[in-house]
């Protein structure tokens, strides 16, 4: 993971709004699994822990995906005005 410094993982601050920049940076780091990997490699992960974590993540991903689909299915609608009669 060697990249040009101040090019990779860099966010510019606009209008002195440091917090917004930090939020963007942290969101990207979180989404890309960089922070999780950092935390995970602080201590050695024994093979049984690795196995359990991977299995758990797999199950969670399947559950989340199906749940998302279910929610989309329940929330689907085919009308122009979702709340007819209300202003």
């Amino acid at each position, binding site marked *: 993971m060697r990249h040009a*410094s101040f090019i990779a993982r*860099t966010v510019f*601050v606009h209008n002195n709004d440091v917090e917004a920049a930090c939020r963007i940076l942290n969101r990207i*780091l979180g*989404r890309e699994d960089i922070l999780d*990997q*950092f935390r995970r490699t602080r201590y*050695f992960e024994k093979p049984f822990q690795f196995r359990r974590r991977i299995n758990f993540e797999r199950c969670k991903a399947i559950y989340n*995906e199906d749940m*998302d689909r279910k929610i989309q299915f329940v929330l689907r609608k085919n009308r122009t005005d979702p709340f007819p009669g209300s202003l």
Partner: protein
Amino acid sequence: MLRNGLYNLLKNLSISENGVQENVRTLVTSLTRCRDVVDRREMLRSLPKPDEGTVGERTMDVDSSIHERTDRFPDIDTPNRLFNGIAFKDLPVFNIRVSPNNTIINVTDAKGVPKILRSCGIEGFKNTRKGTNIAAQATAITIGTKALEKGIKTVRVRVRGLGPGRMSAIKGLQMSGLQIISITDSTRVSWCPPRPRKRKKL
């Protein structure tokens, strides 16, 4: 006529339509070409395969902020862009080293020659009090004012590590009156690290 039908089919089958989260743009990696349909087999081949696998098998979530047309992120011209008359690559750097137990802030010039160093321990916080966000903020404010006395005004910030001082150190630097141009994360992360130490017993 046939082409219109194909467009509608494509629209109905579009993978990006099911399960799109807010603030996320879906990138479809499968090739969807539009060509003149000659026969049925050709038409079937041009259709995207129905995706019944997991999310991420053929589609990928890309952070939507990356596609916004704002100069939030550096590009090729960034090193030579001027900030207050100084090129980006020549701006002094504030290195913030955050750990669970301490926060160390080090000012270097663009070449990496250290100028000032200050940590929560030097600041007077001892033992567990070092590893607090208040200590980090106080340290950041002192080092910021010191840097201002030396004539350092416009800076880049580089943060490494995770800990309670991560956010508050940056905030403290801003409170001391420095103009922060960019925030970089240089946390050292490896996907094939040497074996780390054993886990702590609980």
